[in-house]
């Protein structure tokens, strides 16, 4: 804790936040541009956010706020877990078997560049109900990120580790367990962080188009209802949710890769 308070990084971080708030305040209050004056300022947003009796009906004291959060978190988590459960094994298989990679990589190259929003109509047609469609769109981007990073992770493992494992008498499943999975883990976790970020990104977009609840829906609905501070509350909550989920992945990754932590600590 003492380290935290004396560390330069910690203070610079807060200085960054303060600067942002000041610029926000300044642009809405001092700039003589009409477009900026329509936007809610930081004080307006924060007083609405922590208001027990909010003007537009959404604050940390109201139940609907948490319903929106819950819906978004549940969708993001479902999509993310599905992406991990399917993407990691697929990526490993692609990295492991040259033949399988030849089948899969062409298809991946074509499907991956399609923006998630372009999938929305197809997803609605496919699943007939919006809930599954939103999760599907969210899943897709997370899945591509997870698979590609796992694949790169397996491919980047030094050949000598495979040779050493064979020399020491490993069976193919032992190679998988002791070389491929731990060796690809750093890349897999990079992939998971990218996947989580991408998941929130396309989740919000999907919710704007095809949902009744959720933070993305909240943002868009408040826009339609001209409830400007609530838009910003929705945005900020999305930002926080994304930040917390990435941090969780980092913590899990650190626990699983202590060898890396130690090694990096040595260099620093």
């Amino acid at each position, binding site marked *: 804790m003492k380290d935290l308070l004396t560390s330069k990084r910690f203070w610079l971080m807060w200085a960054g936040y303060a600067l942002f708030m000041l610029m926000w305040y300044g642009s809405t209050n001092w700039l003589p541009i009409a477009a900026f004056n329509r936007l809610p300022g930081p004080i307006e947003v924060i007083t609405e956010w922590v208001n027990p009796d909010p003007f537009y009906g959404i604050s940390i004291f109201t139940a609907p706020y948490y319903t929106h959060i819950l819906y978004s978190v549940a969708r993001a988590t479902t999509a993310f877990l599905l992406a991990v459960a399917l993407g990691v094994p697929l990526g490993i298989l692609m990295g492991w078997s040259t033949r399988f990679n030849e089948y899969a990589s062409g298809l991946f190259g074509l499907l991956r560049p399609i923006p998630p929003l372009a999938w929305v109509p197809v997803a609605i047609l496919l699943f007939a109900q919006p809930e599954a469609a939103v999760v599907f769109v969210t899943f897709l981007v997370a899945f591509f990120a997870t698979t590609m990073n796992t694949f790169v992770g397996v491919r980047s493992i*030094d050949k*000598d*580790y495979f*040779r*050493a494992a*064979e*020399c*020491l*008498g*490993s*069976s193919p499943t*032992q190679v998988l367990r*002791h*070389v491929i999975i*731990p*060796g690809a*883990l750093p890349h897999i976790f990079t992939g998971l962080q990218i996947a989580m970020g991408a998941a929130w990104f396309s989740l919000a977009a999907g919710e704007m188009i095809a949902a009744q609840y959720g933070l993305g829906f909240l943002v868009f609905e408040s826009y339609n209802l001209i409830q400007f501070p609530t838009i910003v509350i929705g945005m900020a909550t999305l930002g926080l949710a994304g930040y917390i989920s990435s941090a969780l992945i980092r913590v899990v990754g650190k626990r699983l*890769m*202590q*060898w*890396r932590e*130690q*090694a990096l600590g*040595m260099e620093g």
Partner: protein
Amino acid sequence: MNAGLAQRNPEASSTRGVMAERPDVGKLSVRNVGKIYDPEGAAVVAVEDCDVEVEAGDFVAIVGPSGCGKSTLMNAIAGFDTITSGEIMLDGVPLASPQLAPRPGPDRVVVFQHGALFPWKTVLENVTYGPMVQGKLSADEARIKAMGLLGECGGLDRVADTYPPQLSSGMQRRVEIVRALMNDPSILLLDEPFRAMDTVSKTTMHRHLLQMYRLCRRTIIFITHDLEEAVFLADKVMIMTSRPGTMKKSLDITLPRPRATDMLTSEEFRELKLQLSATVHEEAKKAFVRGEREQA
């Protein structure tokens, strides 16, 4: 940390002492081995008519310029790659031939040029890996054997719970040699293991390697291009030349064992080193002339 095991000082347990008995296994025969890459297309001859005979328990160094096929030969013995002619036998059993699919195994463990300790496993997990995945030892047995061997190799038992990237490259290489020895291999294949090291670390590594060889004698194939290192460590130095890669000459090293650092300044050592360097130079010149002729 392991306070139970005596911490040994590498200086105290010097390379002087009694040599271990010659082992029963580890007789290697490489006969007329050839390797052509891309036989249908470019047909690059990496190795041709290569013959090596190594008695069980001998320490053989193979020297030669880069690109002479040392690694190709090593990969063939280790079972990483195929050969296109000839055969390699270990104690009378064929290991490699054009008909035989290459198969690495714990009877021929390689210590790699750039090191291949698993960075995600601790020193102890690395060292016990071989016997455990083969199901030869239980976790407890493997740990006891590992701690014993690590301790004998200059007090490495003290770093048993450390991850390899935290160790110096010299320590990493020693751990890797211990990991190989844990499998009781018939042959230890060392592929320029001290290449990237400075002179001082190299000397320390030589002392450790010689001590391990003295305690735990195996057939060792040591690939290097450092002639002094080859003379100091080996019983026999084989000289490989390029265009095509083949064994041209060999030199018996008559220095007594166990070897000690003070031999480096002896008249006999100097004589052998001169002889070796003259031979290498002569062969390199011939190979160069052959190369010029090919180009013409």
